């Protein structure tokens, strides 16, 4: 089949449409930086910190996209598992890198179980994976709260009084992660041009990126791509579609658990009942800002997204304050943008899907017309 003949204007419009969210964010960030008055050094340091903190979590979203399951809002399940691991190591008094590794070991079976459950349910809701995983997140959050608020203490032994609520059971609203605070970030921290770079965290992220590249080329990765493109064709080719989809969600959930532990070691404090809920939305919004869509995402999208999204996060309150004297405006703005960008990406995805159908029709018509002309 030949290429569709398009005018320059149409080609330009296609490029703009393909990168609409990223371009929009670039403009917002450029205006925000100008009005915020922050120095480049300050912004650079903040971006480095936030890229190190969030990238692992966002990369965990790539595998379900590869398998055609869209944006995994169920990553909050992994985040909850990571938090449970952190609660245990805080109670047992395990610190530093061993504490982080132990929290990851504890989170792994919980994440795998939750991921398997999520994958099973998503297989029953094909085509509506995103909204289903979003609701599963709320459902499991209820169970998480039940366990953490009522189960920890009387049923699951938690001895540290600094963790338990004054009533004697349930975990406090905030858990101080002093033992593992910046445990990974400080392992190989270097200074370049006055900026502190947590090298070890970046090495871990780089290893995950390498894993993703290798995984894409592996048999399982190829199967996932085949399933993502067309489930029926994949099934006809002998791929266990349902199983592959479950595996993709399990891997994503486990990685999200690890990502949450890396995220929280940087923060140094665990917000027991809210951290995991926020992180799902922000990670997905950041990935979309980087130019990813529901069915297409790459490692490049992760880094571009986390940079642009967090740049907007940093500059918008101060820009809002300097523009109209109220930081609250910037606060509302960034929350509005987080949700707005997800909506915009979903709308654009639908538009693109329809347009690609139209393009396919136009291409077919063009080919038929060319064939008739050749016959004449």
């Amino acid at each position, binding site marked *: 089949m030949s290429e569709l003949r398009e005018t320059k204007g149409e080609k330009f419009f296609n490029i703009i449409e393909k990168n609409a969210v990223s371009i929009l964010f670039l403009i917002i960030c450029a205006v925000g930086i100008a009005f915020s008055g922050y120095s480049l050094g300050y912004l650079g340091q*903040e971006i480095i910190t*936030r890229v190190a903190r969030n990238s692992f979590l966002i990369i965990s979203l790539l595998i379900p996209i590869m398998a055609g399951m869209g944006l995994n809002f169920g990553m909050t399940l992994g985040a909850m598992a990571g938090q449970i691991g952190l609660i245990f*190591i805080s109670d*047992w*008094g*395990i*610190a*530093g*890198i*061993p*504490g982080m*590794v*132990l929290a990851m*070991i*504890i989170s*792994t079976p919980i994440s795998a179980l939750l991921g398997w459950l999520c994958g099973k349910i998503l297989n029953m809701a094909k085509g509506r994976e995103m909204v289903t995983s979003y609701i599963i997140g709320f459902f499991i959050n209820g169970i998480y709260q039940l366990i953490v608020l009522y189960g920890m203490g009387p049923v699951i032994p938690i001895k540290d*009084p*600094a963790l*338990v609520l*004054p009533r004697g059971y349930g975990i*406090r*609203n*905030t*858990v*101080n992660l002093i*033992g593992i605070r910046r445990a990974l970030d400080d392992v190989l921290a270097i200074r370049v041009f006055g900026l502190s770079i947590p090298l070890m965290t970046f090495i871990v992220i780089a290893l995950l990126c390498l894993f993703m590249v290798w995984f894409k080329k592996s048999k399982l990765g190829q199967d996932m791509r085949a399933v993502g493109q067309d489930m029926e064709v994949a099934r006809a080719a002998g791929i266990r579609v349902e199983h592959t989809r479950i595996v993709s969600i399990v891997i994503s959930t486990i990685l999200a658990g690890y990502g949450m532990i890396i995220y929280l070691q940087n*923060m*140094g*404090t665990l*917000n027991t009942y*809210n*951290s995991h809920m*926020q992180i799902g939305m*922000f990670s997905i919004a950041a990935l979309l800002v980087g130019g990813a869509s529901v069915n297409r995402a790459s490692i490049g999208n992760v880094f571009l997204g986390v940079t642009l999204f967090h740049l907007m*996060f*940093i500059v918008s*309150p*101060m820009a809002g*304050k300097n523009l109209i004297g109220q*930081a*609250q405006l*910037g*606060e509302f703005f960034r929350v509005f943008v987080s949700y707005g960008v997800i909506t915009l990406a979903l709308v654009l995805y639908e538009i693109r899907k329809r347009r690609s159908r139209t393009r396919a029709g136009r291409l077919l018509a063009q080919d038929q017309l060319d064939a008739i002309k050749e016959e004449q």
Partner: protein
Amino acid sequence: MENKRALLKRRIIQLAVIVLVILLGVVMFVVGKEHTILLDNKSIESGGVTYNAFQVVEVQVDGRDKLELGPRDRDKEVVMGQRHKVTVTYFDKYYEEHVVVKKFKVPISQKMVLISLPAVAAELDQSVWLTNYEAPTLLNIPKDEEPIVSDDLIPLDF
């Protein structure tokens, strides 16, 4: 038959991985366990003999900064893992410097241990200078809630 053998091999590998991960978890637990070491410069009595507190004593746990303690002073170090070294440096009445180095192992179940420096200097048995310490109940009263730290950079209450 071939399939069964492959499946069995797979199961054995899976089991081995699970066992390895559990072992790694146990190692991390032991290596990463935090212990508080209280360094105590108070007079101590053992076997009917009194070992007096030092006027000034320097103490160092592992390779950390030296701590200087006066009589009846107590300081603490939070350490990770079980095996540690304490170095006590003191002057006798002839102003001669003495350095005593002791290696010790903190039992995994003990969160807080107390080291009596006069007993270390007198080179008494480890059971005399290293004892388990239970913090009084009052010290266990939980602090106020930690402030919530989130990704937000700028506080809203300007």
